[in-house]
């Protein structure tokens, strides 16, 4: 009920923009992306490990062998002396379920309405790039450290450094998204009475 109905105050301009065409199209797509990342995370993991294999081959100069598996794809990498222990990419080590919440929330905001839907898409793109990119980097680093330092290199990178890296990336992605959402969102104190 508008403010003028009872109190005689001038009606406050509506705070929220209705979702435009971009929001109405990209909102459901973003939600669908979230669903795909959850439902199709096994496929995503295969793609993720394929990308790591490419990075290991072209950046690290290693030979790689990728084996799909019902539970987790496995990547073998090594130098001329032979392949090291295989690295299995489980759900917990994939970025799929870390990206899905961003796609879900930003998709909802696109459907809800935002003055700058392009910014939300930018935020989503940045979050995906940051998290997926960091995880690719982490996995490649694990391969490199195992190749260089063996089992100890794998353990330290996988257990500690990689986890800290992902935590930092997720936090940065979150704060970045909040900053982008806040910039295009009408602040309450700027709305004229």
């Amino acid at each position, binding site marked *: *009920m*508008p*403010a003028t*109905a*009872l*109190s*005689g*105050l001038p*009606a*406050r301009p*509506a*705070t*929220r923009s*209705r979702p435009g065409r971009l929001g109405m199209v990209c909102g459901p797509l973003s939600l669908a992306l979230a669903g795909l990342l959850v439902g199709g*995370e*096994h496929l995503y993991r295969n793609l993720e490990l394929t990308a790591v294999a490419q990075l290991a081959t072209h950046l690290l100069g290693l030979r790689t062998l990728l084996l799909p598996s019902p539970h987790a794809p496995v990547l073998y990498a090594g130098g001329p002396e032979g392949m090291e222990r295989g690295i299995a990419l*489980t*759900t*917990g080590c994939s970025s799929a*379920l*870390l990206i899905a*919440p961003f796609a879900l*929330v930003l998709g909802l*905001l696109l459907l*809800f*309405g*935002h003055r700058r839907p392009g910014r*939300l898409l930018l935020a989503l793109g940045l979050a995906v790039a940051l998290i997926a990119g960091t995880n690719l980097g982490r996995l490649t680093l694990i391969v490199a450290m195992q190749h260089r330092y063996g089992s*100890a290199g794998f*353990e*330290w990178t*996988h*257990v*500690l*450094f990689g*986890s*800290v890296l*992902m*935590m930092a990336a*997720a*936090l940065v992605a*979150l*704060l970045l998204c*909040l900053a982008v*959402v*806040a910039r*295009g*969102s*009408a*602040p*309450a*104190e700027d*709305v004229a*009475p």
Partner: protein
Amino acid sequence: MSLLDLSVCLSFVLGVGFLGYVGVIVTGFLRARPDAPGDPSGYQWHFVVPCRDEEAVIGTTLDHLHRRFPTARLWVVDDHSVDRTAEVVRALGDAGLPVHLVQRRLPDARTGKGDALNAAYHALEAWLPPGTDPDRVVLTVVDADGRPSPNLLQVLSGPASFGDPAVGAVQVEVRMSNRAVAAPLPGRGRTANARARLLARLQDLEFRGPISAMQITRRRTGTVNVGGNGQANRLSALRQVAAETGDPWGRALLEDFELGLRMMLAGRRNGYTTTAWVEQEALWSVRQLLTQRVRWAQGSMQCARYLPRIWRSREFSALGFLEVGYFMAQPWLQVVGLFAYLLPIGVFGYHAWAYPEFTADFLSHGGALLLSLYLVLGVAEFAIWGPLYRRRCERDIGRGSALGYGLALAVYAAGTYLVAVRAFWRLLRGNRGWHKTARTASVAVN
């Protein structure tokens, strides 16, 4: 995808999300500045005090309110008290205090605080002379033991509060009046008293720390909400909200939060200030505190039914929707989080027992450091409030004590998971009983 994988990912997402949230509200908390006062003479002030069996405190409260705010009228809602509450109020009225007694009798009593406040609202409406400007009438809800700050009316009149015509309600900071009581439980042992003292202090820290910080951030998102004590409402805004159902306050267990939502849905903005405050009694009993918090959590869960209206409303910005959604999801996330956090911990514990060599290998190759980091972060995001509380609120307490309070807050906060589960269980079972929080015994501050 196994349940363990899902739990690990969920706990990571929830943990990072909460860490980010803490960072945002701490930033806002540190940047907050006092609000400018205004001229209260342009308003008509009314205090509404809902009561049930408050004979021990209502007299001194009314006397205090009248001495401090002599131009304000006092409305006491007697919700079928069986003690002498009504007699005390009548006696004060006979002595010349500008007090009104609104009596409710069973079966139309004890149906919730919202109904009691509605009774006061209707009584006030009936009492106001025709032609009264409702934009200039303010009703402030105060607990029976409430003590507003001396500058309350000046701050509420200010440009950040009712001086802004768009503002419909304002919540002031809440402080615990008995936070410094040395012997809260005379006759009980040293341990019981230490626990009671700590509990009171933690409640003060909680309200003036993280809760205040959340409200300050909500000024930016436009989603400030009101609490049960120290909420001030413009009469025109209450009328606007009441137009929908006939009453401004609803029947959720968290009737104040519900009112705040309805204010926002009606196009009003809610304000929050730390420049004025209201003091209330902290609870000294863990059991009482848990009962109170279960009621709050259940009330918050009940308000989830407003989410579709919030979604459809044009009065919320995207940021506001995000904030309200996150806050209302909190109890539900805590229920999920309890299992998401416990499962990996349980599995780790099992592996440590069943596969000690594997576990030792894990710990010696970064696992111990990682777990320590999780522990430090998990505790630090609560412990930080101790030093912040000292810096912004209670400069008299020592640095060591401040850190201790912060660490205790981490333990205190862990209790909210159990609260959320209990509230969820009550919601599932359809338990909607309103358990009035019992008054703690008043003890002179040492």
